[in-house]
């Protein structure tokens, strides 16, 4: 014991991980002779330095009905899927995947279960989310299996069954040793688990770093700490860990060839461990998808040669050129695919991204869109339109959380009333509410932010006539806005349609600019033939603030949703986060 009869509590896995990392840093500094800075040497490991491997195993599920199922694991910009089970209501997959977790990286894993369909897209039947950081704070010595409720995608309050998942955060010692074991196996020709000098030399050559013979012999002696003339697995693990920090002997990943040492040294080992896993087939989940929706495409899509998804060109392929629109969820740090009907995408492309479409726009489509929106406005204000609410909720299952809505569904007498629904006061907390120097987001939306107009036109707005002057018009434009910064908040149909004030200040004026009602979908915004933001109907308000100077707030109407209402008036002092107005169906 410790003298007083009470055992000290075991340190958490997270604290052990951190202290091990801290040790590594100290060792590194001592060797480099850079430990002179006392404040530096007394500092713990910064939170953003943490990185490790989480081993996630999707074991089985217990579902309400019988079918063939598969499960997807999504983390950040990666999604993996299991094999498809036999037809049963208790599928067993027992599929494992190792993923990297970093403090500043994605840590909320989503697990989705799909039923398979022979000809159409597979159907999502349930999902759950796991915060991997929570596991770090638990003191779990062994891998353990947890049963998680699978939420119904159309209602967050009902469950579709349970899924058994095991998550385990690998200790860095374990990672180092398992890595050394694998590396050793490459050149351990007599399979005795130890390396002779000749095997050790072959290994060094395999790392492709061109070390001289005498340097290799020196490293061998350094590794052979007990001086028995061979290097065993523990000795090799220690050498690789130490040496990779001091003078890397592995300059490129032996599996994928990627150059190492760009980031933290421990990340190199994690990278190589994961690469080895992919190569040896130990990982029994298929990867290469960006979102669970992509992983769930039907067989026809998978047969196609172009059925691959690259994280690298995700942005380039999004917007106008993509067959699907991807957005990055800030909360979960995960890519998600926007729900949009394929036929609508095709028709929008035809209209907004071709010269033929441009001709159509010039020859009366503007009036058609305006009339359509006015007609739709009348329809959505009629009592009959209320019956469309449940269908709308079903269409956007999992994307509208009715628990956050202030009033119950039955209270909405028309669809438009539902469309402009208010949220409970606690549903959207305002960040740094008392600090006027921090601006906040104005809407539940898909956001783009650019420090200058030039950047916005380089990366996003492709309409050739776009300019700040054109957007604001003569009555609301000030010289200070020239090449100013701009942020675009795009609302999708399923979103909460009220917009809020992003900064605190005084509303100076409102300027209404009549115009067209083109769609504000990226397909149109990214088109060089269409100038959505400078031609659509809009209302501009100027807010005067002490911290940001003048801020122009431009509410832009779109096809069908062309009615803009403000709830504040000129001269009002507004606090950031205050409700400012809403969009509704109409012209």
């Amino acid at each position, binding site marked *: 014991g410790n003298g007083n009869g009470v055992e000290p509590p075991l340190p958490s896995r997270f604290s052990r991980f951190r202290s091990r990392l801290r040790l590594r840093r100290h060792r590194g500094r001592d060797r480099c002779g850079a430990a002179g800075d006392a404040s530096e040497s007394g500092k713990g490991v910064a939170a953003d330095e943490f990185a490790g491997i989480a081993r996630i195993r999707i074991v089985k599920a217990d579902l309400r009905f019988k079918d063939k199922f598969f499960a997807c694991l999504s983390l950040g910009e990666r999604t993996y899927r299991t094999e498809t089970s036999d037809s049963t209501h208790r599928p067993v997959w027992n599929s494992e995947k190792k993923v990297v977790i970093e403090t500043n990286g994605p840590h909320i894993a989503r697990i989705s279960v799909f039923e398979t369909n022979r000809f159409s897209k597979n159907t999502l039947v349930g999902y759950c989310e796991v915060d991997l950081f929570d596991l770090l704070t638990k003191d779990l010595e062994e891998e353990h299996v947890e049963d998680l409720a699978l939420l119904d995608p159309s209602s967050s309050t009902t469950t579709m069954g349970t899924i058994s998942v095991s998550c385990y955060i690998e200790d860095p010692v374990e990672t180092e040793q398992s890595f050394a074991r694998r590396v050793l196996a490459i050149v351990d020709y007599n399979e005795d688990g130890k390396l002779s000098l000749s095997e050790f030399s072959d290994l060094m050559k395999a790392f492709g770093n061109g070390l001289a013979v005498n340097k290799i012999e020196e490293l061998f002696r350094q590794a052979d700490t007990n001086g028995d003339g061979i290097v065993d697995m523990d000795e090799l693990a220690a050498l690789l860990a130490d040496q990779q920090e001091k003078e890397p002997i592995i300059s490129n990943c032996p599996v994928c060839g990627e150059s190492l040492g760009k980031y933290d040294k421990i990340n190199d080992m994690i990278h190589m461990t994961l690469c080895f896993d992919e190569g040896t087939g130990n990982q029994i989940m298929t990867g290469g998808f960006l979102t669970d929706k992509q992983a769930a495409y039907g067989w026809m899509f998978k047969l196609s040669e172009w059925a691959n998804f690259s994280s690298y060109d995700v942005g380039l392929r999004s917007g106008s050129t993509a067959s699907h629109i991807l957005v990055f969820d800030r909360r979960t740090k995960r890519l998600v695919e926007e729900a949009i009907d394929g036929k609508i995408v095709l028709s929008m492309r035809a209209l907004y991204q071709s010269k033929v479409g441009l001709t159509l726009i010039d020859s009366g489509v503007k009036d058609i869109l305006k009339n359509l929106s006015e007609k739709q406005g009348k329809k959505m204000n009629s009592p009959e339109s209320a019956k469309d609410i449940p269908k709308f909720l079903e269409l956007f299952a999992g994307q509208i959380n009715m628990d956050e809505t202030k009033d119950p569904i039955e209270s909405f007498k028309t669809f438009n009333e539902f469309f402009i629904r208010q949220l409970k006061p606690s549903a959207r907390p305002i960040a*740094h509410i008392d600090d006027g120097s921090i601006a906040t987001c104005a809407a539940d939306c898909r956001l783009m932010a650019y420090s200058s107009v030039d950047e916005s036109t380089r990366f996003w707005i492709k309409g050739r006539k776009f300019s700040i002057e054109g957007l604001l018009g003569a009555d609301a434009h000030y010289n200070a806005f020239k090449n100013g910064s701009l942020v675009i908040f795009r609302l999708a149909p399923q979103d909460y349609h009220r917009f809020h004030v992003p900064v605190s200040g005084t509303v100076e004026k409102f300027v209404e600019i009549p115009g067209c009602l083109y769609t504000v979908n990226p397909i149109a915004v990214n088109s060089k033939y269409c100038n959505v933001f400078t031609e659509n109907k809009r209302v501009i308000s100027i807010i005067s603030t002490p911290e940001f100077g003048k801020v122009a707030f431009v509410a832009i109407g779109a096809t069908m949703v062309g009615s803009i209402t403000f709830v504040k008036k000129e001269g009002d002092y507004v606090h950031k986060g205050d409700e400012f107005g809403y969009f509704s169906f109409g012209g």
Partner: protein
Amino acid sequence: STVICVFEKDAIQFDADLLANSERSLETLVEVGTTLGVSKRNRGLKVSELQKCSIE
């Protein structure tokens, strides 16, 4: 529908994650009230105030 906010030149420093995604032409899903960015002017003011304090 869409809202665009235009800030004066050099008035705001947008959050790094929002800028990074936008430079990949990738929209970021956000909610009302989450942080957007910080005033550059105010930060500058605070720095000069601090410097003034230390000199005195």
